[in-house]
């Protein structure tokens, strides 16, 4: 069964600007992915332990030790816009 997707909403969340005429095509493709996921949902999992990670490893920690950071000049040079000390980005309203 086809799954309805609000492609415009999904695109907005991902900050993608998609042309109006492409929405239906993306909707179809995303639908196929969701159908696949739905098929997997249907698998009998009774008695199977949940898996959060494919490798089966846990507790990969690092000790609380300081490592050298990068040089600020080099870092800021990579940015589209910066001051002597900061990255500069367009003004934004607080969305957090």
């Amino acid at each position, binding site marked *: 069964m086809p799954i309805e997707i609000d492609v415009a909403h999904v695109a907005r*969340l991902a900050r993608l600007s998609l042309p109006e005429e492409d929405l239906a095509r993306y909707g179809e493709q995303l639908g196929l992915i969701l159908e696949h996921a739905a098929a997997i949902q249907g698998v009998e999992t009774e008695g199977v332990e949940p898996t959060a990670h494919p490798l089966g490893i846990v507790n990969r920690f690092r000790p*609380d030790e300081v490592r050298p950071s*990068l040089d600020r000049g080099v870092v800021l040079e990579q940015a589209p816009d910066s001051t002597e000390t900061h990255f500069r980005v*367009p003004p934004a309203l607080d969305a*957090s």
Partner: protein
Amino acid sequence: MIVESASGRWEPVIGIEVHVELETKSKMFCGCTVDTEAEPNTNVCPVCLALPGALPVINERAIEWIARIGLALGCTVTPDTVFSRKNYFYADIPKGYQISQFDLPVCADGHLDIEVDGVASRVGIERAHMEEDTAKSQHAGDGGRIHTATSTLVDFNRAGVPLVEIVSRPDMHTGAQARAYAQALRQVVLALDVSDAKLEEGSMRFDANVSVRPEGEPELGTKVEVKNMNSFRSLERAVDHEISRQIAHIESGGTVIQETRHWDEADGRTHGMRTKEGSSDYRYFTEPDLPPMHLDEDWVAPIRAALPELPEARAARYRQMGLEAGAADVLAPASPRARELFESAVGAGGDPRQVANWLVQDVTAWLRKADTDLEATPLSAGHLVELGRLVDDGKLSSSAAVMVLGHVLAGDGAPAGVAEANDLIQISDAGALESAIDEIIAANPEEWERYVGGEQKLTGFFVGQVMRVTQGKADPKLVSQILRDKA
């Protein structure tokens, strides 16, 4: 906890979310230094700048410290837990997502006991989860105001600093309770030595979820998230204001909408913010770059065993030592040095009440005036014991003892020497006082006659005269005693 208004009786319901920056040496997922005072953008690397291909690795100390916080709050440590991605776009979050936790927080189901005006209550802790802090943005142009900024400057030193979010249950009903909860939580965090928890510097921050419902209504009202409170006082004010605002709004026919409102300290009101469509659609999913954590009892046990005594338990112990509740509550969460002085002085025979009063009142006042810390003064437990003995032996009046304490704090020497050098020793030798008293009696025969005749209130007159001629150095108790004997 019911607010009465023109239209009826309302029950406010408050939950608090607290963010605490951990003071680990390095960041949550990379080796950059945690130092928010450093020059902007000097503690940055491929991981915390989200350069392509960089991979996070979990700082174990941060996980130990959040477990410490959780255990101190009576939480359970989740045996199998994972990090999740919280997806949103903002300049302070370079990856396009924040590594946080969703359905499996490190700690869950605890509580914190608070007291307001002598009424105790228990606030449930729903969860404490681990995440990374965001970068610091600064709005440039036109006075730094967010609505008129021409650009935003970003400093990534704070990005990736270990951040613990502690979420209470909606168990509070007044601004005063919200404040008491936040204060108690701060004391716990300080006692655990995991953060400096400074409100003004943002290493401890709180948001309040506020709703109101008619008394007796089982369903919660629509909650509003109130942000931007930078002190305990503003938390209390903001919560109380938001409660009144919601009640007034409903009474005038309005409906409370779910939104985020900013507290404005200057005008004492909360203001709605323009919310972006879909901004709360975070599409959490398990972080594929980090393997899960298995925190079993073997991992938790040593952390539990090493928990320090918490302020609440310590205050109870101090009360048992004979302190009044007020002094115990002030001293229990005081600086480690103050507590060490108190406990060693009492261990060496000092009177608990006397030592506590000096520390809580006089020493604190002196330090504030001198704008310095206890650690910077030479005051020792031995000094406090010696000072107590001088008072007990009648050699120092209580006011002279406070003066001596000031000299000791200033580094002028030990109490006995300082008292001697500053001529503060009381005359507690009956012989020396007797001749002074005789002279005063001879000079005031009428008053003396009335005193002998039973006019008790003249005791004050004679004691005052003796204090005057001895320049305040006579032991007033001894003077009254001699007067009684002579009459």
